[in-house]
């Protein structure tokens, strides 16, 4: 019992950014310390643009090569510039939405849609979990036209052009180290 408590504590400390919970045969993900709206997505949101986020959750069982479950979904977030609240639309079926949320609540809502079914897993089976969140960049002009004008070619713009990344930038990957469902239960119990 004490060993289970210690291992549960260790897990909680190691994976403090990613928190797992096991309820009703579903593995739920949360990351209350992580703000995935921060930075460029937030600037776009405050500018009345919608920002799509792609979230993937993955669960490996037995070893880190055997994917037991994974889920991918796309969440389109927008910020109401008058009411100063967030709205989210979940794109994949079943399509759902939530509105009048704070930033934290909007992020929590997105993650709450990403739980994984654990039916068939034994309590002592070693498991690994991962949460990946990417913000989709707005479509960019694919040419170097902006670098070239009648007055010449801008070296600064050329550097910007060749430094561009693709339209999808993975900006967050949270891993949860090896655990078992029994350990999660004991952590919650403690």
């Amino acid at each position, binding site marked *: 019992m004490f060993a289970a408590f210690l291992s549960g504590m260790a897990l909680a400390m190691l994976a403090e950014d990613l928190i797992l919970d096991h309820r009703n045969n579903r593995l739920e993900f949360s990351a209350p310390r992580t703000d995935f709206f921060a930075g460029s997505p937030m600037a776009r949101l405050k500018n009345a643009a919608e920002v799509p986020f792609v979230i993937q959750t993955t669960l490996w069982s037995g070893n880190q090569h055997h994917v037991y479950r994974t889920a991918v979904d796309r969440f389109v977030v927008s910020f109401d510039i008058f009411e100063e609240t967030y709205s989210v639309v979940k794109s*994949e079926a079943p399509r759902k939405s939530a509105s009048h949320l704070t930033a934290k609540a909007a992020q929590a809502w997105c993650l709450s849609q990403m739980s994984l079914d654990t039916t068939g897993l034994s309590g002592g089976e070693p498991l690994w979990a991962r949460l990946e969140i990417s913000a989709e960049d707005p*479509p960019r002009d694919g040419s170097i036209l902006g670098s070239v004008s009648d*007055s*010449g070619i801008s070296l600064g713009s050329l550097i910007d052009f060749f430094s561009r990344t693709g339209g999808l930038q993975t900006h967050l990957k949270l891993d949860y180290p090896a655990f078992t469902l029994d350990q999660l239960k004991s952590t919650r119990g403690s």
Partner: protein
Amino acid sequence: MKLAFIFALAAGISLFGGASDSALPSEPAADGAQTNINARYIVEGVNLLGSETKALSRSLRAELKQVVGANLDSRRLEKLASRIKEELRVTGVKVHVAKGTMPGHVLVNFEVAKKPVDLKVAKFLYDSKGGWSGEASATTRAAGNSFTLGLVSDDDALVERDTGIRAKFERDNLGTDWLGMRFEFDDFHEMWNQSTVAEDPSGIYRSRQTFMPEARVFLAEPLEVDFGVRFARFRLSTPGAMTESSNAVVSTLRYHQRWGSGSDVQEQDLEGSYSLDAAMHLLQTDADYVRQTAQARYMFRHDRSRVEVSFMAGRTGGETPLFDRFVLGNASMLRGWSKFDLDPMGGSRVVYGSVDYSYRYYQVFYDTGAVWNLAPEREQKQSVGVGFKKEGFQLAVAFPVGAPRAIPVFFAGMNF
């Protein structure tokens, strides 16, 4: 794993497991429903900051007008920003949305991004007959003013090779969008081709400094006029010769209209200009002369096919210095001929026409023209060529038609 992630995203499907019901309140969203909560707000007005609306094509201006009064559509605004960027040929255009003056209304500002300091290669050319030419500059901008300092070595535009510095100050807005100004200062050391030196050694000069203050007035939407004064001093190469001055009133009436832009299936662009430069004793010039030039260019593009027709005619009267004489047989006019074979001193009369056809990046062209001083010398020349052109970069080979020795000329470079 990452591949599967991206594939699943592209295909829009969930792999294996599904998502659970939420503990937080949520409601079903209708398919096709707006994903941006701000789509319910109405656009009250649209502004273009950092550039002139009149620089945009008619179709784009019409599209910007259509945004006013419509519901906010952030994706449409991003597309419009991209078109503005393309038409203005700037490094970036940002969309800013702010609360409007009425409840439920928003203001949209398109902000043209200009780098405070920018390094630019204005021209770069290798010509198998003339050698290398190039111009590089650094520009800094502050409070609507731009200062440019550049290094130049150009053997293409004139019969001389100009090597030296070019400094410019520009302000597009002098209290009103309809009035701008610029100052340019050039300090060049000259190099000459042997055939020019052999023709008239007394006319060549070792160095030339030019100072040109100029104002730009937008008369009506497609029409603008530049006027100013150009003070030029040049030191003749003849031993014991004095420094000479060529001070002229310079003016250009310019017309530019375009229909459609790069993102439309069809695009047209029409430019025309008439320039009159008059060097007068009133400005303490050493030699009086008048130079007139008329130019026109029409471009029509349908999908990937593009036709461009250009025309130029000019004449000078009086004692025109070499830097103001007309040149054909360079990388932009009567390509394939050598300017030194046509007239090593440049001509006092010129007529030139050109037709370029391109499909995607591949181009073929036909040039014809004549440069002369006296009517009996006038002889029409022609050339043809093929090339590859992409966004200012060009690689071409041109053949002089009917030349005693039809040696092709290769061009490679940018903005020439």
